[in-house]
């Protein structure tokens, strides 16, 4: 009798534990939209939309991002493309993608020969630790790619 009574009335410890588990479940549910992140497939899809079927080459891009970002809400990013920026040969555009964000596209920069230097900086949101991928589109149709991992301590994007 006493044993069955005990099972019906949870002890304080059990009760606290159950609360914790419940809280965890709630947290998981609220995090789900962020969990439904753009994976590398979504990034590939987004890339295709911007550059078509061109296979990206390595090199020519200097991508500057912090290795560890304490605040994912504002992560500085600098992209520089090695290009003479002459009327015949220049970098047309730079596209930035984030593999672990809810949406893969981050930003696109469009340069002209009047830029003199194919370099630009901005600040972006990263939901969690992930790869940042950069594509550089040149005037001759070649596309270059570079990527870097950013460790994010506190994610951006809310959630």
């Amino acid at each position, binding site marked *: 009798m006493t044993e069955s009574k005990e099972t019906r009335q949870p002890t304080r410890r059990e009760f606290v534990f159950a609360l914790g588990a419940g809280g965890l479940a709630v947290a998981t549910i609220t995090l789900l939209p962020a969990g439904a992140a753009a994976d590398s497939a979504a990034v590939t899809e987004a890339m295709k939309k911007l550059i078509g079927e061109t296979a990206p080459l390595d090199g020519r891009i200097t991508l500057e991002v912090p290795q560890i970002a304490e605040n994912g809400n*504002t992560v500085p990013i600098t992209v520089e493309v090695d290009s003479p920026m002459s009327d015949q040969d220049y970098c047309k555009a730079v596209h930035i993608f*984030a593999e672990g964000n809810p949406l893969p596209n981050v930003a696109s*920069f469009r340069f002209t020969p009047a830029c003199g230097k194919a370099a*630009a900086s901005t600040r972006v949101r990263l939901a969690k630790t992930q790869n940042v991928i950069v594509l550089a589109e040149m005037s001759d149709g070649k596309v270059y790619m570079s990527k870097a991992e950013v460790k994010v301590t506190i994610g951006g994007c809310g959630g």
Partner: protein
Amino acid sequence: MAKSKPRVKLPKKAAKGEVIQIKTLISHKMESGQRKDSKTGEKIPRQIINKFICKFNGKEVFSADWHGAVSANPYMSFYTVASESGSFEFSWYDDDGSVYTKTAKIAVQ
């Protein structure tokens, strides 16, 4: 929403052919469309600046397309060749249709 205030920093004078850096900043919440209202649980609709354009003497020099992953109060810096004296025109295009503009002059010797 508070009025978006654009700010632009570039040298007042430059030598002909010099590559100068232009830094821009605009106050904007850049609501990503991913956040949820903590009370109702509904998604807060996206409202961001989706395009930034810099023109020099009417000709486009640099532009950027922004998505929800660009931070609030978006910062943008880029370069241009100082070819002649004139004025830069900067415009930011909001999702709600408003356009924020700013101009800056440069003297090229």
